[in-house]
């Protein structure tokens, strides 16, 4: 065999990745991976607060990806977006991180970039204010989330959120976000 699974495992190991899922995922998978990470951290006697934050960011990030896929249902692009998703949870010298990516339509890059920039540039106090303002808004028909996922994530981070967009082709860019707890 020209390529081996051990090579993939080595790459994951170098990056400090504990668990990783690549491909189309479901609510059931989010629940299983989330519980597994919780158990892993409990076994290492991590503070409850850290476990809560890692679990919470993992759920918000993966549900954000999922909701993005659902928002594209009925479009021929939906399949490609759904199968492009990858989510990893790992640990490095600064602590735990949740690192995820998926392709997004090029037309969605600017609004998402603006949202991320606002969140990254805000203090914890400002984030709390943003969270409250957004929570009080009436949900729009068909809305899946509260629209505060990224704000909630930013309230829990220990280091600034890292994100990037890389153009794949005329239709899509690859979006990735890495959050450290």
């Amino acid at each position, binding site marked *: 065999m020209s390529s081996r699974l051990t090579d993939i495992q080595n790459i994951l190991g170098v990056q400090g990745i504990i668990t990783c899922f690549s491909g189309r995922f479901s609510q059931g998978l989010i*629940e299983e991976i989330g519980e597994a990470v919780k158990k892993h951290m409990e076994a290492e006697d991590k503070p409850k607060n850290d476990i809560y*934050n890692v679990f919470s960011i993992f759920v918000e990030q993966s549900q954000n990806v999922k909701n993005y896929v659902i928002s594209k249902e009925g479009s021929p692009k939906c399949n490609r977006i759904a199968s492009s998703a990858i989510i990893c949870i790992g640990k490095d010298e600064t602590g735990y991180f949740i690192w995820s990516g998926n392709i997004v339509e090029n037309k969605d890059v600017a609004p998402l970039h603006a949202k991320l920039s606002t969140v990254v540039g805000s203090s914890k106090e400002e984030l709390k204010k943003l969270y409250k303002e957004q929570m009080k808004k009436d949900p729009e028909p068909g809305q899946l989330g509260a629209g505060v996922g990224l704000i909630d994530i930013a309230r829990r981070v220990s280091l600034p959120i890292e994100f990037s967009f890389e153009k794949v082709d005329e239709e899509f860019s690859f979006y990735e976000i890495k959050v450290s707890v």
Partner: protein
Amino acid sequence: MEPFIVEQTKSTPLVAFNAESRMLIIKGQSYPENSFKFYEPILQWLDDFFTMDRDDRLISLEVSLPYINTSSSKCMLMLLEKFEEAKEDGKNIVVNWYYDQDNESELECAEDFKEFVELKFNLIAMQGE
């Protein structure tokens, strides 16, 4: 009125209302695939209950959410707002919100909710497992 009960799953809490004790219990993690779909019948049931209820005895909302995602938080806020409206209509209401004393994030989440509404709102520390 018929008692209301929704059994707990991995990502949805137990929701139970007993008309005799006048307690609405919400207990467990909440991060369903579609929070609005999960909470909609509960909110609907509450509307019906408050419309029909002629009793002036205390109604208590007993909440213990070891984890709640943001879309469930939105629904929980809508639920608290229903209690707030009922209070404005003269109902006697108390919220007892339980949190793990070893988990600062759980307390912060509870405090956020307390700040959102004008209700008698007790934050109760629990000994973790």
